[in-house]
């Protein structure tokens, strides 16, 4: 080949050519370079890639130990168990923060809400829990990112807190359906008929007045129900199934099905209650009153637990209806399905009922987490990785090769489907209001935000966290608080 040397003559030729090119551009009406930039369309690459659909199902308040696939031998959850067998299952999933709205903020944004910096109540009547607020304006949601990737975004939910003023969890969705009336959703005015229902409702305990407000509104919302289809989980999954038919014509789509049951009030049709309780006299324990459970008799507590379990089975049944529809439409062949819960609920374990910030035991902090890949990746396998709510968005984006937003803090768990590790996470931290929780391979610990009132448990010998060994292991407590909680929080925790 001839040797190439750039001579001065060559340079002059190229410079001349460049000048001519610039003239051509100018003559073509581009004006200045800046102006031409402004005029040029911003889309120029073909879109595509992993265009599988995504269905994300959130089931509120579903305890991990209430699923057959996680070892429960008395509760009926055939659809969840079947789904788990087709999925990669995470056995150490926990919310990075709880309860409801905090978990959803993390799910939607991939950003931790912990440690609740700059939190304030958004309006007078809002829930007074640290970190409970809408998604901040500067944070980008998963739906907004998928919108830019050409996905058609759909949301069905009865999780009432998202219907409150200023709440913005439906950002980025093309269509959303708020199923009204759950819990204390201000949906229908209170009437004499609904007031009459209060007579057979057990109210009491440390949060009695709040529980009473909830039940008064709930009965007003639900008066006049006819068939099972009128209950909330049936409504949510039926509407989601309807959305599926429409979504099939708008692939790829992202569908969020955010189902509030089995959150209290536990008011399923009688046939479900009869599965777990065969007779009860007196006012029904339809809702808890978060705090110590000693205000309830043993039979009331059992009945409450049975009603919860009944609602779990009802949610499972209607989830099955939704999954059958997806199967019939052929959507599951081309859709990744992720299902998780946001937290659990206590029914007298460790002396508490409800969701108590100072009682971060497995019944409250352990959640379920499945990923069903259409290609069968990871099916039937389990992972001990600490999976969490803020991993959802990076995982969905990662599985499709879509670049994650730089703000996202969660891990892309889709690599686990290929048998890889998502990156080190030797410990995990979570928070609920004024309490913090952490765990590693050996211990779990929770305390107040400033480290006071610590509870430490040896997970190897005491997985149910029954024996507090904090007083005999102060060094472990100190290490877990300073090296896990404070470090993950980036400094001392705020308090309000």
């Amino acid at each position, binding site marked *: *080949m*001839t*040797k*190439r040397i*750039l001579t001065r003559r*060559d340079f002059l*030729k*190229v410079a*001349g*050519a*460049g000048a001519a*090119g610039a003239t051509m551009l100018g003559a073509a009406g581009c004006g200045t370079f800046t102006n*031409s*930039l*402004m005029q*040029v*369309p*911003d*889309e*120029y*690459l*073909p*879109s*595509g*890639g*992993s*265009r*599988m659909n995504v269905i994300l199902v959130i089931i509120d308040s579903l305890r991990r130990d209430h699923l057959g696939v996680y070892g429960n031998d008395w509760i009926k959850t055939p659809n969840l168990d079947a789904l788990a067998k087709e999925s990669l299952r995470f056995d150490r999933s926990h919310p990075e923060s709880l309860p409801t709205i905090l978990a959803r903020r993390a799910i939607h944004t991939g950003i931790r809400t912990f440690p609740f910096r700059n939190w304030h109540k958004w309006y007078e009547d809002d829930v007074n829990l640290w970190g409970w607020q809408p998604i901040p304006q500067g944070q980008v949601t998963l739906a907004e990112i998928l919108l830019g990737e050409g996905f058609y975004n759909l949301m069905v939910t009865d999780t009432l807190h998202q219907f409150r003023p200023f709440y913005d969890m439906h950002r980025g969705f093309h269509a959303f359906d708020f199923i009204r009336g759950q819990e204390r959703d201000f949906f229908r005015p209170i009437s004499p008929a609904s007031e009459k229902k209060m007579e057979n409702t057990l109210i009491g305990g440390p949060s009695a007045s709040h529980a009473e407000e909830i039940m008064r509104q709930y009965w007003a919302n639900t008066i006049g129900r006819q068939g099972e289809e009128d209950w909330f989980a049936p409504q949510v999954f039926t509407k989601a199934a309807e959305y599926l038919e429409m979504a099939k014509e708008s*692939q*790829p789509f992202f569908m969020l099905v955010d189902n509030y049951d089995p959150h209290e009030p536990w008011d399923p049709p009688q046939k479900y209650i009869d599965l777990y309780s065969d007779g009860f006299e007196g006012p029904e324990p339809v809702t808890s009153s978060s705090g110590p459970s000693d205000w309830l008799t043993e039979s009331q507590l059992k009945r409450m637990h049975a009603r919860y379990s009944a609602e779990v089975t009802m949610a499972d049944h209607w989830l099955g209806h939704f999954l059958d529809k997806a199967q019939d439409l052929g959507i599951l*062949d*081309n859709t990744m399905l992720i299902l998780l819960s946001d937290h659990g609920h206590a029914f007298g374990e460790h002396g508490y009922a409800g969701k108590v910030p100072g009682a971060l035991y497995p019944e409250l902090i352990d959640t379920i987490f499945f990923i069903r*890949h*259409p*290609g069968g990746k990871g099916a039937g396998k389990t992972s001990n990785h600490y999976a969490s709510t803020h991993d959802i968005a990076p995982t969905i984006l990662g599985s499709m090769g879509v670049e994650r937003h730089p703000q996202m803090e969660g891990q892309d768990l889709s690599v686990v489907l290929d048998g890889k590790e998502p990156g080190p996470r030797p410990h995990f931290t979570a928070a609920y209001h004024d309490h913090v929780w952490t765990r590693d391979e050996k211990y779990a610990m929770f305390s107040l935000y400033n480290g006071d009132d610590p509870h430490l448990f040896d997970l190897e010998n005491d997985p149910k966290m029954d024996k507090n060994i904090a007083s005999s292991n102060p060094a472990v407590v100190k290490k877990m608080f300073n090296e896990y909680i404070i470090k993950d929080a980036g400094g001392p925790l705020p308090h309000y």
Partner: protein
Amino acid sequence: MRRLLSFVLKWSGILCVPGGVLWALSPTGVYISNYAFHTPNVFWKMFWPAPLLILLGLIGLQLRQSGLSGLLEKVGFLVAVLGLLMIIAGDIGLYWLGIDDIYIVTAPAYRAFRIGLLVLAVGSILFAVTSPRDGVLPTWGLLPFVLGSLCGLISFARDLGSFGAVLWILFGIGWVWLGLSLVVEGFSSFLRTRRTTRGGIAAKQ
């Protein structure tokens, strides 16, 4: 017939010009398609002639200078051809055959398209940088083409919005420039030959 074929082969490099023009018009095409049909796919369905014309032009260029080219230039040519074939295959697979609409986790057509773009840019740069100095392509045609290919490489690597669209257009213009340089150089060569011939005849007379 043989003379005609020879002529066609000799000048098929010019096909880079319409190919480059179509390429450079792509962002506008996407915009119009979005505006008229609410989807860019109508445009992308009709995009394949651009890389096909460039491919034919590139083959024409290579045939004209094959006797002078070295190993690296041949590699550059083959890489660019591979890139163009991947783009065409990707476009046909994605928008005509609908391969990626059935089961799309690996998205073979889309990936072929996007990887083909990168392969084309790398091949183009290598082809231009190693083209023979005394071949059919003048340096003043090759160097802007290299710059255009670099612009392409950047814009193909990731979505850069309007800036990326400008770089994409410059990549197309690079091919137009290369094709035109072939025409200009060929015409100059023709004029020089004619003058020499006339001069020779005049001297003889």
